[in-house]
């Protein structure tokens, strides 16, 4: 895919980062700084029905990230269920993951994290059977999860870092408790079943290199492809299976 991204007709985004380097393992890495400094049209490699979201990069900075619905559908954000709830702190992520549910043929409910009481009502009345959340929002739904309901089929916790000790108690509330390593701009790249020392397994569409940080390549041709992308996640922050 790197060859395609070098073609004359391709946008300059990666050509500018890579310059004349052709050895894949030596390609300079891309990072959030590159996304912040490059307007979306200059890193759009394909046109399709898509969702555009704003990714917050901290300190008032943000950039646009575009995802085709076809690509969103393929991401393993949750496990199959009938009545999923999406409960994420970031609104853009919440809408995208809810659209993931729709693309996979289920009707989700979306919860407002600043209003846990209403989220509790929605979860209860819709009788949700799975949950896609992040660590912070999961805590806000604890009163519902611990209220004696039947365990959910799955809880998927999305994020780039996980406090295992803090999450452990939620394992009681579902049959499958999983962690999904993901960034808003890259989508998911590894998953782990929850344990005290979760071992993340890279997705088969992803190549993860270990430098000081995890360097991610996705073979899926995304609107903005992810090639040797510096995730910023310290290599010792997660246990990543390497075989």
């Amino acid at each position, binding site marked *: 895919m790197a060859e395609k991204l070098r073609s004359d007709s391709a946008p300059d985004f990666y050509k500018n980062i890579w310059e004349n380097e052709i050895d894949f393992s030596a390609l300079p890495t891309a990072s959030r700084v590159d996304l912040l400094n490059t*307007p*979306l*049209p200059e890193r759009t490699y394909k*046109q*399709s*029905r*898509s*969702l*555009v*979201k*704003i990714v917050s990069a901290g300190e*008032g*900075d*943000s*950039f*646009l990230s*575009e995802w085709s*619905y076809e690509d969103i559908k393929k991401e393993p954000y949750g496990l199959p269920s*009938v*009545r999923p709830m999406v409960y994420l702190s970031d*609104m*853009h992520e*919440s*809408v995208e993951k*809810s*659209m993931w*549910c*729709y693309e*996979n*043929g*289920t*009707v*989700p*409910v*979306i*919860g*407002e994290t600043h209003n846990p009481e*209403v989220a509790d*009502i*929605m979860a209860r*009345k*819709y*009788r949700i059977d799975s949950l896609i959340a992040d660590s912070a929002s999961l805590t806000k739904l604890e009163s519902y999860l611990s209220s004696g309901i039947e365990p959910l089929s799955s809880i998927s916790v999305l994020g780039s870092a996980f406090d295992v000790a803090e999450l452990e108690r939620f394992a009681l509330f579902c049959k499958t408790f999983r962690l999904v390593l993901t960034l808003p701009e890259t989508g998911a790249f590894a998953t782990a079943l929850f344990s005290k020392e979760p071992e993340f397994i890279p997705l088969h569409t992803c190549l993860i290199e270990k430098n000081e940080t995890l360097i991610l390549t996705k073979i899926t041709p995304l609107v903005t492809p992810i090639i040797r992308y510096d995730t910023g996640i310290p290599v010792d922050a997660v246990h990543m299976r390497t075989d």
Partner: protein
Amino acid sequence: MDVVGREGFRTVADNSLANLIANPPRVEDAWRYGVGVTSGTTGNEPLVVVSKYPLTSYERYADVIAPVNCLGSANARLIYTLASRHGMKSEHSRALTLDAADLNSRLEQLLKEYKPDSIFGFVSFVARVAEYVDTDTASRVRLLNLGGECLSPAVEKMLTVTFPNAHIRMAYIMREVGRVSKPSCEYQPRNHYHPIEGVTIEIHEPDETGAGEILISKKARGADIVRYAPGDMARLIAGPCACGESVTFELLGRKGNDYVKLAGALLHRDEFDRVASRAALFDDYRVEASSELRDGHLVGKIVMRVWSAGEISEPARKEIQSRFTRELFLTPTQTLGQLVVQGIFLPLEVVVSDEPFPRKDKEIKIIQV
């Protein structure tokens, strides 16, 4: 026949939810359903409602390729995103859905990159987003599809100045019953609508001006909704429209015991009543809320008319002005006075009325003008 309010509507909502749980849609039909909550602005527990969207409800996106959706709640954002995903015809279409947290100094650059051709959403949210759109980006916008609130003349003027090439289209739609009106008619003033086929509009106990609570009857969500009162005030307009439609109604705003949305704040009657009760300086009041353009920015303006059987002296009038400025909360954390300091609202005007207020537009104490 009884009028069905939001609490009465709960049975309809619960039944449709139970039906969806018992009979989940086929995978290929999931995108035609939504589960969400009503805003809960009545103070009661929010209703969890199932919406089934006919294809026609997505058609408002048919001719656009890069909409920006501006909605206040996560539910509404999701449904508009879903509608844009399935309503747009172009295979190269995209949609951006904004949150209030996005309204910061970066937004202007991000919208410039995105190049919207249309903006969909609630009037007050779109008005706030307009402040972050540069001239070139604004000139690309061809359509403003607005709803959720009445469109005041000041906001309309601001939007038409900001988006000189945009056609403004409005419709009366609500989460509980779906679409009620057709898109705004070119022969009618703002906030006047024709109901869609299958919808019957009645006005509950209209006053001498014809104003009263709107009652909606419609077959929707798999059930007959009969004389549902969503809490909006309206009046029927006599005579056929030049377009050929026989029924026209004018929306007047929320029912008086509720609220008016203005400049990103909510003017709740309960909150005015609370401060009025504490101050005990007058017997009755009416509030006129409007928007004005000041230095290119839209600011909220509140004129409060007060009446008392006894005299209201000038010092008392100033005391009323001072207390409402200090004590009236327009957001969960900010008083009118704080919003005045930030330039979001103009200083409160208090006018003493010489006579009691007539029962015109009954039950409406706060109106948007």
